[in-house]
């Protein structure tokens, strides 16, 4: 039996990742700004049109100094899209939002210079693009996913041999397979894969999403509860059918 799970128009919410330049200032700030000006003088428009994140981790400055710094950068046409490593109390309204969970990527190309005065923050890690080919496209988890745990795997499919508890979540770039009861939330195709599916042995989910189309537990057909179910996307509708 195939059922349309929703009639109401849905809101599309998706995750995307973008590459940003990260600036890590050091103290004293005026000297750092001089070095930044120097860089800008040598390569005009280096920051133009680029998203820039300000990393203030381990930087001993207060709220006012941070606001000043953002202002100073603004005057140099460096628009800050987010701040990393700041305490929430340092950011008021009018300040860029706090960013978390950044991951280092390969070297950003930089204007050639002998002394490299400012660098976008980097870590000596390999380029993600090169690694992508060798990275696993799926993961298998042999334990139940407990309440409060989240499994985030944008690279591909997630298989759980066990149950997913109420209050747990799985976010996968590809399909999600649960060999157990699904009581938590699952978001499949989170990076824009409308072909992703969700399979589970016992449907008790709190929330389901495929490619940004969401479905709450309350809107699901009651006949599907407790059944082995697969879900997929047709247009803007999540479709479901029991697996026999």
């Amino acid at each position, binding site marked *: 039996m195939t059922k349309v799970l929703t009639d109401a128009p849905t809101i599309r919410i998706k995750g995307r990742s973008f590459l940003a330049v990260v600036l890590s200032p050091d103290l004293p700030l005026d000297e750092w700004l001089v070095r930044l000006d120097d860089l800008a003088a040598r390569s005009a428009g280096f920051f133009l049109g680029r998203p820039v994140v300000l990393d203030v981790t381990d930087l001993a400055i207060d709220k006012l100094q941070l606001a000043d710094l953002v202002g100073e950068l603004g005057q140099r046409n460096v628009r800050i899209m987010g701040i990393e490593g700041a305490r929430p109390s340092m950011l008021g309204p009018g300040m860029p939002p706090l960013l978390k969970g950044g991951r280092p990527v390969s070297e950003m190309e930089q204007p050639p210079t002998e002394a490299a005065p400012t660098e976008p923050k980097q870590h000596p890690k390999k380029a993600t693009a090169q690694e992508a080919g060798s990275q696993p496209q799926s993961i298998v988890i042999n334990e139940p996913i*407990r*309440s*409060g745990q989240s499994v985030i795997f944008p690279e591909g499919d997630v298989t759980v041999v066990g*149950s997913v*508890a*109420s*209050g747990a979540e799985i976010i996968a770039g590809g399909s999600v397979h649960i060999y157990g009861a699904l*009581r938590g939330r699952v978001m499949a195709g989170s990076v824009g894969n409308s072909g992703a599916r969700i399979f589970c042995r016992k449907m008790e989910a709190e929330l389901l999403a495929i490619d940004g189309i969401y479905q709450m537990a309350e809107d699901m057909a009651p006949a599907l509860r407790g059944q082995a179910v697969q879900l997929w996307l047709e247009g803007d509708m999540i479709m479901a059918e029991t697996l026999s």
Partner: protein
Amino acid sequence: MGKVIVVTSGKGGVGKTTSTAALGAALAQRNEKVVVVDFDVGLRNLDLVMGAERRVVYDMVNVIQGDAKLPQALIRDKRLETLFLLPASQTRDKDALTPEGVEWIVGELKKYFDWIICDSPAGIERGATLAMRHADMAVVVTNPEVSSVRDSDRIIGLLDAKTLKAERGERMEKHLLLTRYDATRAERGDMLKVDDVLDILSIPLIGIIPESTDVLKASNVGAPVTLADARSAPALAYFDAARRLAGETLPITIPGDKRSLLGKIFGRKAA
């Protein structure tokens, strides 16, 4: 070397302290050296349930801060020679516990005792994570209702992530202790059934403690239920749970099974 057990639950009021005291007294009656450790700094209760509240001079925080030696803070039970209590401080909060201090205390206790039973505070913050940190095995205390089960699930996740054992890549032994189980209410569907809880938590069961006024009575007179009334139903269930902790295999009886069997017979007759 002694075994370190953490008694934990996430949710408050499910019976961690009662179970710590009852299991401690049950193990001590097997002539094994047992210390029950209260980690609930600021909201200590284990001293009351053990009937030792008037004998607390030094506490764990005093020992951590070097104001007292560990043997000075240990209180020997008046009824059982092999049972000791390490009380928590009531005038401090959980920040007074340092990871190094707790590690040292647990290490010392392991030298002298067969069992170190840590009574975890509710919640998932510092007190609870420090109580579970050095455990070899965990007793997850759960009531048969949804909020307790979900909190226990969360705690099991933390036991698999934030303990030393988990960080070394070993498996933490986890046991489910179902407390305040009321057979008639479970039968009526007012409570989760044992199978439902086991299905959600998927860890082995070491005991079902029936809901009983004996437990409350024992707490009020300051005695673990396994000492106050060793023949009562909850005490017998705790004794069995302690034997399972010590490695024995015993079949588990679900309280009220007999009654429900009779109920079925009468039910048939009536029909």
